[in-house]
């Protein structure tokens, strides 16, 4: 449960693998390490891998919007990959597709420097 971070210098991409439940209680402990990594790397792209996310409510929407704003300020973009059908429905409700590319399966996602996505 939590977040694992990877960085690919070639494509200047930060990959954040999220797992467990994302709610108001857990979102703070996810937000801080992701932001620290972004500020340390200044990447062009942030990829949020949602494969391991077992539950998400509107706090997850807030988490994605907040990271979008940060990436946008830095001139970068954000992509979410592999949401479960339930998470995908919530992202749609939250209008996340307007600010963030959503990739349904890892097969559709481009590979970055041998990094798993």
């Amino acid at each position: 449960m939590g977040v694992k971070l990877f960085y690919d210098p070639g494509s200047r991409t930060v990959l954040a693998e999220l797992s467990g439940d994302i709610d108001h209680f857990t979102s703070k402990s996810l937000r801080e390490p992701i932001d620290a990594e972004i500020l340390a790397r200044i990447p062009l792209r942030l990829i949020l891998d949602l494969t391991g996310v077992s539950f998400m409510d509107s706090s997850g929407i807030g988490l994605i919007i907040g990271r979008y704003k940060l990436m946008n300020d830095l001139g970068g973009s954000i992509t979410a990959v592999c949401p479960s059908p339930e998470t995908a429905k919530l992202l749609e409700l939250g209008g996340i597709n307007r600010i963030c590319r959503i990739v349904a399966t890892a097969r559709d996602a481009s590979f970055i420097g041998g990094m798993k996505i």
Partner: protein
Amino acid sequence: MKDRILNEMTLRFPSLAENERFARLAVSGFVSSLDPALDELSEIKTAVSEGVTNCIVHAYRDTVGIITMQVRILEGQRIYIRIKDTGCGISDIAAARTPLWTSAPDEERAGLGFAIMESFTDRLSVRSRPGGGTTVTMLRTLRTRKAANEDRNKKV
């Protein structure tokens, strides 16, 4: 409420953030006797999470108060959920229910809690008074997993 109550439970717990997960799991466990379709169970858990989070984040901001959650299983696979706090209350309920409206934008609240509760249930009612707390009730008819599977097979 005219509908016959088949089963009922009430939980009282303090507004600690770690209880968001507990509340979801408690409701999920309680309604499991209905063998609900998993996507619908997930929607119920999300609606409960939104209601309970609002008590923790808004109603009892900077304090800890008691959240009372009552769940009833009614005839016809219907579930009734009431989430009640005695916190700060809401002065303009219509504004609060507007999608994207939040009183805490700098805390990364999305302002979507009520919108999600509304779309994941059949009926949402909000009663509140400034200083008098808030009661949110939700009604939702659940399909059994069996019925959901049969529907899916028909579509194929």
